[in-house]
């Protein structure tokens, strides 16, 4: 995966003469001391990370952690005090005004928590706003805005005023405004935080759907762990202006960098967060290709690997069925050549994105490990009861320790 944005040692200090605070930070003083002595506020300190092209990168933290400041430095709505931000190799922190305008107009757009729609413009003109700034003629920009409105499911509302729409619909307009310029990077500053939970989930799904159609680099700011887990390919956790950990949701969940990160995840039920795809294992089951392989060869492989069940895939790794040693033996006795009569009925499968909680019923009713399929039906691996229990155990290691202290 190629690197789209690279943030290098970024500092932001608010107030007059920020260099003073920069020096004090280098001398090892903390934010509070600096604020008391100089009145300067350290917004972000020494942030470094990189964002890959086409991923959803969530920056998570509590309010005051500097995450909103961080995202605003990516398009220089806030100028960094020191450090570099490379977007496709170009340094946003030092680029000239013309380059900066081009970046904002063509490469990067933004969706805001408060929607920030222009109340004096129609939905259509709001969606076309970025193109209007870029000087695109009315006909073209309206056409493209209409397409963006369609993408977010707002066809027919183009003549309304933003205030006539519900919150969720207003944010769809905000999203359409971001999409109209067809940006490579979409910055979303707590974009769904102002919406009520049901609508929020709906918008997250909408975003994932859009992302599956056109892979954009999305930088998503959130204070909501569930949201970060749900949509983030990778997550950066910020605390007090510092980036304390960057990783995939599972990495962070299973291996929190410090107590702050751990505190974030305390009370989080792993069965809600880990998905079938996260815990599926590919190694432990024999795979049997459909073509050419008869029941005898299949049985032979099951016995050699000491397995009870075999998962039959076609050339595209699509799951065709599950066979057992017993069903294969019966087929051989009957003299069959093709494997399909040996398939067990209703083998049951789960999707990679299902949470552990969702797959529990499937897991308990089947004697064999449950196969996990990707969204397009490809076989990813299986989950056995053992695997499931081991995952639960690993995530609860700390709980007994706490109890022991209590007693």
């Amino acid at each position, binding site marked *: 995966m190629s690197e789209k944005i690279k943030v290098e040692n970024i500092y932001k200090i608010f107030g007059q003469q920020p260099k003073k605070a920069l020096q004090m930070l280098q001398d090892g003083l903390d934010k509070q001391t600096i604020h008391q002595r100089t009145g300067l506020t350290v917004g972000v300190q020494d942030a470094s990370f990189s964002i890959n092209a086409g991923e959803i990168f969530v920056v998570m933290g509590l309010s005051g952690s500097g995450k909103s400041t961080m995202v605003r430095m990516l398009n220089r709505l806030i100028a960094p005090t020191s450090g570099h931000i490379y977007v496709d190799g170009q340094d946003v922190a030092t680029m000239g005004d013309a380059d900066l*305008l081009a*970046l*904002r107009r*063509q490469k990067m757009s933004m969706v805001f928590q408060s929607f920030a729609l222009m109340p004096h413009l129609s939905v259509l003109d709001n969606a076309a706003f970025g193109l209007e*700034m870029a000087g695109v003629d009315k006909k073209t920009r309206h056409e493209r805005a209409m397409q963006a409105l369609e993408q977010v499911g707002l066809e027919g509302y183009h003549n309304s005023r933003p205030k006539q729409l519900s919150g969720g619909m207003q944010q769809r307009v905000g999203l359409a*405004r971001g999409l109209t310029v067809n940006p490579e990077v979409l*910055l979303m500053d707590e974009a769904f935080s102002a919406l009520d939970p049901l609508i929020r989930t709906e918008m997250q799904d909408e975003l994932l759907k859009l992302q599956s159609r056109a892979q954009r680099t999305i930088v998503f700011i959130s204070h909501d762990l569930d949201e970060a887990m749900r949509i983030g390919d990778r997550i950066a956790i910020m605390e007090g202006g510092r980036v304390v950990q960057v990783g995939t949701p599972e990495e962070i969940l299973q291996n929190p960098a410090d107590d702050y990160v751990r505190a974030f995840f305390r009370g989080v039920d792993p069965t809600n967060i880990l998905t079938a795809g996260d815990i599926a294992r590919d190694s432990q089951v024999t795979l049997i290709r459909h073509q050419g392989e008869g029941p005898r060869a299949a049985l032979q492989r099951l016995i050699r690997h000491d397995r009870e069940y075999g998962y039959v895939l076609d050339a595209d790794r699509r799951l065709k069925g599950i066979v057992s040693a017993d069903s294969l033996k019966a087929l051989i006795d009957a003299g069959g050549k093709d494997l399909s009569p040996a398939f067990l009925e209703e083998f049951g499968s789960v999707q990679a994105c299902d949470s552990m909680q969702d797959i529990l019923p499937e897991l308990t009713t089947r004697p064999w490990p449950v196969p996990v399929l990707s969204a397009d039906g490809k076989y990813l691996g299986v989950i056995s009861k053992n695997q499931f229990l081991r995952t639960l155990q690993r995530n609860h290691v700390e709980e007994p320790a706490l109890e022991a202290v209590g007693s």
Partner: protein
Amino acid sequence: MTRIFAFDERLIPLDDWVQNGVDWLVTNYRELFQVIKVPVEMTLEGLEWFFAILPPSLVMLLFALLAWRYAGRMVTLFTTLTLLLIGFLGLWDETMTTLAMVICSVLFCAVAGIPLGIAAGRSDRFQMLLRPFLDAMQTTPAFVYLIPVVMLFSIGTVSGVLATIVFALPPIIRLTSLGIRQVHPELVEAAVAFGATPWQVLRKVQFPLALPSVMAGLNQTIMMALSMVVIASLIGAGGLGGPVVQGLNTLEIGLATIGGLSIVLLAMVLDRITQGFGKR
């Protein structure tokens, strides 16, 4: 030492300084001020000519249409009745002169005031600098600056308009600035995020959203301009102030009353119509 606080002696002869300063301006730069007068003079004459040449019925129709478009049925009726009454009171010509004066001064107030208001709205420093001047313009008794106006620009309707501009300028500056400041910072931020230049931010976001406030400022400026009509008459400006001043001088209460009544009614008409501007 205590002698200083007895205040029986004038230690700061500010009055002499001002006197000498203005005298110096008049002797050396009177020509310059006469030139400054020219654009106002030309605009005013154009407007006066326009209202004089237009038959009263057409003026009434014009006002009725404006009222209909911007303020609704009741105001249209009120406007028509007011203009009819003024005509029957025999003050039509004076009213047209006043109208020309008001429109002329408001025009110059808008041309100068809106850009100044925008600048003040976007810069705290400029706002701070401007404020004492605005306070002075609004509170200095008009009679005080009528004297230098007359000395520099001589008497007449044009001088009256100049004095009116000074007095009526502050509200449009203040309310334009307020309107710009009231635009949500998030909207400005969003515009900038989408690549708007400072000029685009002003033209596409700040000014359109400040427009209702600007219109309220325009309305206040019109009202202040009308309130100067009588005072301007003291330095020889024509219009509805004339009958009032004449009535005052000759103790003709009837004459002063119809002049005053016409001013009030005209003010109400202009107020109701221009209030509608901002709502559109």
